[in-house]
């Protein structure tokens, strides 16, 4: 090449600017931690008795995973510039599959029924997620519409299969799944919290250190250039949907275990917190950017708001208003940031 090479060594200013650059790179995550601390400090100030005791943190660690387990993989879908609104119903659909398989064995070998039911639950979730991906990618239907459709569809299937009836989950207590998924480490740390951390680390690893994650970012950033450069954007998108499906079924199992009952309405309140976690966590609704760390921290911010409001003596009606506001404000912020960058 003829435009080669005034090779100049990096100037010392570049080295010194390293810290500033690092701060700028992680500005969003740092800001998020500050927001979390600020909100926590505020609630602590309003109700020191509640927030000074362990109970509230125990409850946060045991209930936040109910939606954080889905918000973490949903981050992948949103980075890939798609959306999934069906995961709440997929939680219940996974458990409906558990229900059917378990009842086959409940008289003869309930333990085996639990294990097979758990596998059926995860497979059902995988199938539902994969189907979302196929509908979006192969039929070219916008994911917003497609997953509203599958949301109603799977809820309907659950109602038909269970006949609107719940199921006691106590037989699971006899299996290792119970201590493994919702037990308490040392009687203190809920296992589902550990699973949330595992989910976060594994998803973070694949997003940042694996080809799949690189392709998720590229697909969401510029689907045409990704495709032209040989990225299999279709497979990438289908995979993200499938992962959310499995995660939703897993979360459904965890919730049902924690309360020891399968409600056919399982997952109906999950939509708002889960989406709010992803968007508050800084994942752009326009695709191409987002972090697992952001979603993880944001999920706990979202989780603390409800008890914080109640403990402060305000009406719980405020919660929904604030969640809605968080979604709108964080998405609006992304739009503003994006325009400034472009």
């Amino acid at each position: 090449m003829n435009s080669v090479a005034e090779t100049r060594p990096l100037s010392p200013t570049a080295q010194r600017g390293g810290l500033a650059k690092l701060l700028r790179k992680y500005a969003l995550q740092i800001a998020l931690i500050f927001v979390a601390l600020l909100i926590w400090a505020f609630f602590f100030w309003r109700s020191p008795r509640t927030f000074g005791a362990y109970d509230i943190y125990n409850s946060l660690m045991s209930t936040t995973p109910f939606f954080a387990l889905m918000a973490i993989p949903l981050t992948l879908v949103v980075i890939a510039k798609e959306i999934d609104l069906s995961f709440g119903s997929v939680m219940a659909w996974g458990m409906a599959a558990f229900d059917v398989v378990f009842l086959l064995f409940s008289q003869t070998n309930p333990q085996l029924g639990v294990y097979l039911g758990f596998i059926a639950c995860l497979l059902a979730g995988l199938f539902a997620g994969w189907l979302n991906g196929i509908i979006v990618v192969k039929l070219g239907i916008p994911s917003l519409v497609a997953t509203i459709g599958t949301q109603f569809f799977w809820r309907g299937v659950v109602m038909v299969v269970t006949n609107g009836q719940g199921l006691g989950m106590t037989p699971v207590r006899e299996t290792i799944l119970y201590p493994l998924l919702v037990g308490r480490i040392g009687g203190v740390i809920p296992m589902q919290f550990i699973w949330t951390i595992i989910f976060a680390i594994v998803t973070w690893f694949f997003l940042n250190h694996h080809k799949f994650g690189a392709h998720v970012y590229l697909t969401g950033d510029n689907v045409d250039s990704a495709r032209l450069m040989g990225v299999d954007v279709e497979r990438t998108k289908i995979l993200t949907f499938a992962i959310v499906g499995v995660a939703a079924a897993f979360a459904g199992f965890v919730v049902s275990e924690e309360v020891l009952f399968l409600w056919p309405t399982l997952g109906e309140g999950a939509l708002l917190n889960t989406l709010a976690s992803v968007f508050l966590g800084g994942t752009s609704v326009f695709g191409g950017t987002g972090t697992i760390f952001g979603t993880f921290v944001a999920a706990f911010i979202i989780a603390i708001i409800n008890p914080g409001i109640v403990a402060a003596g305000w009406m719980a009606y405020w919660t929904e208003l604030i969640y809605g506001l968080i979604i709108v404000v964080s998405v609006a912020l992304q739009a503003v940031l994006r325009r400034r960058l472009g």
Partner: protein
Amino acid sequence: MDYVLQLKNVSKTFGEVAALHHVNFEVGNNEIVGLLGDNGAGKSTLVKIITGYHQPDAGGEIYWKGQQIDHLSVAKARDLGVEVVYQERALADLQSLWRNIFMGRELSNRWGLLDINAMRNETQKLMNTAMGFTSSAVTPESVVGTFSGGERQGVAITRALYFEAELIILDEPTMGLSLTETQKCLDFVAGIKQAGKSAIFIDHNIVHVYPVADRIVVLDRGAVAGQFMKGELTFDELIDRLTRLARTGSLESNPHTA
């Protein structure tokens, strides 16, 4: 002459619209072919067939180095060494420079785990040499959305040469560039020739195509209207003919001499 790429009798219709009809087109080894044509002449469709994005209608044949290719897919075209440099669509704006350089060809082990350090180091090396980025403000971690048009073009062409492309397709690479950036971009195209590779240079701007192309092919309304070796025509004669084409639909004053 040996051809790196040959299209024979390629047509493409989208529903009722015939974008290309019976096009014969070839690119020689180490040849820079300028592809000229108005909007809607079929340039983009032709490019998309060469890159495997579209399949030609039945009857069209594609040869790569003399071998017929049955079903040219995007992945196959890339394996063969066809690389496109699009003005707008080459880069993922929100991603870092190194992620763009290695887009779709990430260095990884057999489990798919990325070798991020190797990609960063290679990018730094390319920046210092081929891309000519000397500002310390730009690092492999810099987001390409902040680059100027010329820099972005440089990134895309460097990427193509780094991955040993045999045939580089430049789709209107000078569009929207300033004068100095255009010159830089044309230097990159001359660099393709020096590296012993071939290129298809698409532009409406004859001023840009003429100096760097070995041969110029004119496309009009989905068909090849004519082609010239650069030595055959002066710049002014070429302009005359193109003007005539726009007015009459024929490049020659007397079509029988064509």
